[in-house]
């Protein structure tokens, strides 16, 4: 088996699995609600606060800026909706959202919801052929009317084609007009250097299972000066912004995973860049007309490769590779399982057929050259078959 879908979810780090197992085991002997006032509660709270400090240290944030959530989707929704509501409450003219056209659905659909239900307007910031938002594009959009912009949201790195955005420059443009800036850094943490404070962003989404942590836990880093109206109301946990009893074992495991992934990042990233470049070269050798989508070099996530295979349907390629033990993705998975042309590729100017013919190969901390070998060995035959099926579909 070759697992080339780390961008969807990457294996748990062994240390994190041990930590989770130990804390779950400990939960058998002692309950612990981090909001309780007794000894057991204090013990749980201490674990949570140590996790908060550990996570904060790993990503250049202050502990008070860390809000634990149930994952990337919740963090994105909380940031987009919460900051929008707060900004509009302070000034009813602020209804416009500026978002890149290549955001993950957790941001896209949260924005669309605000448009459909709350009277927001949205301007999708165009990207270049590599999927990158240029600061001058943002500047032009802001300066059309800086007074009505509620927030700007641009992801740190794209989950499909791996484009790394100039987040610091973009945040500076927003800040010239006092506009808060959110970034979805789900794909970036553990692969790129992520420093919340140095980046200048006001809110940052991260999640556990993309960097060796558990599923179902994430965080929103939120600066102390950024207002954010809660989605969830209740016990007032997490600065009153995110109520709900904390999942102590998961929170601790998340912090450990982010900490370890960050410590090992430079070394892992360098290895992944080598492996990824090898993959790209060998795929292009095996299938000469395969077209690499997205940027090259340092402007790309280390573990990401993304190709269009002319004449093929992405879901045919996926089925054929799966049958041969190679696990890949056509992009971001959709709940219904129905393949749609990627909005990311369409935003880069690709046409419908190119967008439907694409496949993402994503590497992670457990990837080895044997994964690339397995892919390259079966790929030519798979592409040939998928092409025949594509010709049938086109009839």
């Amino acid at each position: 088996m070759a697992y080339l879908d780390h961008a969807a979810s990457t294996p748990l780090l062994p240390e994190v699995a041990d930590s989770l197992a130990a804390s779950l085991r400990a939960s058998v002997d002692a309950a612990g609600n981090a909001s309780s006032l007794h000894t057991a509660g204090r013990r749980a709270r201490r674990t949570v606060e140590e996790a908060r400090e550990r996570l904060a240290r790993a990503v250049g944030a202050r502990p008070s800026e860390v809000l634990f959530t149930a994952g990337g989707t919740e963090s994105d929704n909380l940031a987009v909706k919460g900051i929008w509501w707060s900004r509009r409450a302070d000034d009813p003219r602020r209804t416009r959202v500026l978002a890149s056209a290549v955001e993950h659905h957790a941001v896209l659909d949260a924005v669309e919801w605000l448009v459909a239900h709350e009277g927001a307007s949205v301007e999708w910031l165009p990207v270049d052929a590599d999927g990158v938002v240029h600061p001058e594009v943002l500047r032009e959009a802001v300066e059309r009317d800086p007074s009505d912009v509620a927030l700007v949201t641009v992801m740190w790195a794209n989950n499909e084609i791996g484009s790394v955005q100039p987040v610091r420059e973009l945040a500076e443009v927003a800040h010239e007009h006092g506009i808060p800036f959110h970034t979805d850094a789900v794909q970036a943490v553990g692969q790129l250097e992520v420093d919340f404070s140095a980046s200048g962003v006001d809110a940052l989404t991260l999640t556990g299972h993309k960097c060796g942590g558990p599923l179902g836990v994430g965080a929103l880093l939120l600066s102390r000066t950024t207002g954010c109206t809660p989605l969830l109301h209740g016990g007032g946990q997490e600065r009153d912004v995110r109520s709900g009893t904390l999942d102590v074992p998961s929170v601790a495991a998340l912090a450990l995973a982010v900490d370890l992934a960050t410590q090992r990042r430079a070394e892992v990233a360098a290895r992944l860049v080598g492996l990824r470049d090898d993959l790209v070269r060998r795929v292009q050798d095996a299938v000469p007309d395969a077209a690499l989508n997205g940027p090259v070099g340092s402007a790309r996530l280390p573990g990401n490769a993304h190709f269009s295979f002319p004449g093929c349907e992405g879901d045919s390629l996926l089925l054929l590779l799966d049958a041969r033990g190679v696990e890949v993705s056509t992009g971001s998975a959709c709940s219904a399982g129905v393949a749609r042309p990627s909005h990311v590729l369409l935003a880069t100017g690709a046409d419908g057929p190119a967008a439907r013919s694409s496949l993402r190969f994503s590497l992670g901390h457990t990837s080895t050259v044997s994964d690339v070998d397995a892919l390259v060995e079966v790929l030519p035959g798979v592409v040939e078959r998928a092409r025949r099926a594509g010709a049938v579909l086109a009839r």
Partner: protein
Amino acid sequence: MRLLAALSGGVDSAVAAALSVEQGHDVTGVHLALAETPDALRSGSRGCCSREDARDAARVADVLGIPFYVWDLAARFRADVVDDFVAEYAAGRTPNPCLRCNERIKFAAVLDRALALGFDGVVTGHHARLDGGVLRRSVDVEKDQSYVLAVLTPAQLSAARFPLGGMTKAQVRAEAARRGLTVADKPDSHDVCFVADGDTRRFLRERLGPQPGPVVDALTGAVVGQHDGAYAYTVGQRRGLDLRVPSADGRPRYVLSVEPVRSRVLVGPREALDVTELRAERPVWTTEPRALPLEGLVQLRAHGEVHECVVEADGAAGGAGGAGWRLRLRTPAQGVAAGQAAVLYDGDRVLGSATLAAAH
């Protein structure tokens, strides 16, 4: 063999896939997403293609331990089945969309793609038998679906597998339950899957708009009522006519024919529905084309009765499958609608089918 099992999310396709796995085949499950807006479609037992059905199909694949994918054929289904359905009604004919789906989607788009991807064939949960390439009725006469498969060519049938043809529906449900498939007691789907509430007349009105016209008594020529669109009427229909003038003899009247061009619906007594001579176009032989004339049995609608008949060549109605058919029935048929298929049987063996053009 490497087989692609079409999993609708219902019990029949689940058991068909299970049997194929148990026979030692390398089976991959595929759910066909045919609705462009799955949320808007009926859910649960009323049809197919809802999210719930997709989930049920995925769970079947989980239990069987086979790979599972969803293939999006919504655009194709709309063009080849839904639009065709509406256009046929607009032309005064009564189409059978299940038959069209088998002809254009399941055993064309899906089968062709499967073969190109390296599969040896496609498995479905249809109730019909394939004996050495010959299509036969299911042993469960009530559930028999050979009628809607009679449009398939020998080439299509050679790559199709219908593992359920030798079983009754009750046996299929028992087999599903025995294997722990959660769809074992899921109700049967019926009606037209893409008509959300089963109200075909409203479905057509929304797409074709009101086209009012007279309802005319075929015997007297008198206008006996009004209609909103001739397309909403089917030959043989009695209910929903809303006639204001009672018939002379006080007996109920039936739709005898639909004339969309003049926007007329002709009605008359039941015996005027009787036909003994029919023409059918564009024949498809499920086996080697037979020499005409021949004697056989013909079925004129899904689950309809069977008539002994003689089939003669009708050169004017020919097509790729050879000459058209002129059918002489030994016993009169009633309410035969143009657009339905005339399916020819030899005993329980399907010989072929052609589309009914006109009745006399």
